[in-house]
């Protein structure tokens, strides 16, 4: 009973930050302090969410597909890059600058170039997501690998462990915290990335729809899309967190 109460209190605290902001926001709008074209009220946004629901669902599908493909690929490439760079010092030397370089290029700037190269399908969007996600993954993981306990590495190598085994028993599990922290960031970037990539053009997707409603000055619908994107990202990140708990049982033990 007491526990249940505590859990409710705890959930209320969690919601309080967001709720507080929403209430103040609604109040300001209701008082007419903020004109609709500057910021629609939460009520307007919810209305738009409801009335626009079918269209939103339809456009979400393709965006989610792009995000999923881009994230999977980006994470795979990021992990592969980190592993290779950790394994081969020469790969590290040759590719680290390149890795950093890719990140210093504004994605949105080369995105149009991607379309020119790859056309209007899903390819340039997935590529753009790969570019934004693989970097935090590669850097984060590499950092995790490099902070492995050198004494433990020495112990295992005294047992004749091959590099692969040292990787498997020490570096990889030791970097798992980093992996999931990066995955969380990547998950959120993948959705945002998909939307931005869709601004490059296309026939459907939340980004395309967003451009459309913005051009017709339907700010309430535009914010409804933003809310939807946030919700999707939050769910994804929650999923990553659950996965982390499952994969790192020793963390929750103590």
């Amino acid at each position: 009973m007491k526990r249940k109460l505590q859990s409710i209190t705890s959930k209320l605290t969690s919601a309080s930050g967001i709720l507080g902001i929403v209430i103040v926001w609604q109040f300001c709008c209701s008082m007419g302090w903020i004109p609709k074209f500057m910021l629609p009220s939460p009520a307007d946004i919810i209305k738009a969410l409801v009335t626009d629901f079918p269209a939103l669902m339809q456009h979400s599908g393709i965006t989610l597909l792009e995000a999923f493909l881009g994230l999977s690929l980006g994470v795979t490439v990021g992990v592969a890059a980190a592993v290779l760079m950790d394994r081969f010092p020469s790969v590290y030397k040759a590719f680290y600058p390149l890795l950093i370089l890719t990140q210093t290029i504004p994605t949105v700037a080369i995105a149009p170039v991607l379309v020119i190269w790859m056309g209007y399908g899903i390819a340039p969007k997935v590529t753009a997501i790969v570019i934004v996600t693989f970097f935090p993954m590669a850097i984060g993981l590499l950092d995790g690998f490099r902070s492995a306990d050198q004494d433990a590495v020495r112990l295992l190598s005294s047992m004749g462990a091959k590099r692969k085994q040292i990787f498997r028993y020490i570096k990889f599990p030791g970097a798992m915290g980093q992996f999931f922290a990066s995955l969380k960031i990547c998950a959120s970037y993948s959705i945002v990335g998909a939307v931005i990539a869709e601004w490059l053009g296309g026939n459907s997707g939340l980004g395309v729809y967003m451009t459309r409603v913005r051009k017709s000055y339907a700010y309430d619908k535009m914010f409804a899309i933003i809310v939807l994107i946030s919700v999707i990202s939050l769910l994804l990140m929650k999923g990553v967190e659950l996965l982390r708990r499952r994969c790192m049982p020793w963390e929750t033990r103590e």
Partner: protein
Amino acid sequence: MAKLRTEHVTKSFDGRKIIEDISLELHQGELVSLLGLSGGGKTTLFNVIAGVSAPDSGRVLLDEQEITGQTGHVSYMLQKDLLLPYRTIEDNVAIPLLIRGMKKQEARERAREQFGAFGLEGTERKYPSQLSGGMRQRAALLRTYLFSSDVALLDEPFSALDTITKSAIHRWYLDMMGKLKMSTLFITHDIDEAILLSDRICLLTGAPGKITEEIVISEKRPRTRDFNLTEEFLDYKRRIIEALGQRP
């Protein structure tokens, strides 16, 4: 023919010589202790022998083959337990088996069989942070045992154990050494323990550290608790304490 031999090993850190010209032999089936002051370079020597640290000069030979700088030839129990926090105890101690390519299930089972002998029953599924200091030390010893090379280097393996547990493990260890024809080089600060277990005791003293004395313990094993009280035992002990106490 020596099982393990070091020849003129010298090692420095930051330009300061820690050990110098260490030549040492370990014969088949022998147990040799290394005694010396704290910070004298014992662990440093072990690291060189195990191949995890390269000597400035000198060589390490196993069965007369040079293994200087090579790992994987000898079992090594480090002074720190170095249990991996993200693996359960059974998975921690099974690591040497996994490294040798054994299947996970089989390795776990092989490991589990030994938990009783080390007084670790019931800790199989625990994580290292849930164990007492002595239990962790025993888990590290069990891991070293499972590596089962015929030469073992043990760096203060029993320092966190009470007398009772310690003598049980001593008995078990000598027994196993005999059966498996193993040779052991080990570091301890417990002079009684060294006299009780060793065929020979090497004293590492001075700065830089050198082997300044070698004491052969002729009493045959197993040595009973009564040996502790003999005049012979006390002689050994006095001699060692004296040698260690002398500043060069």
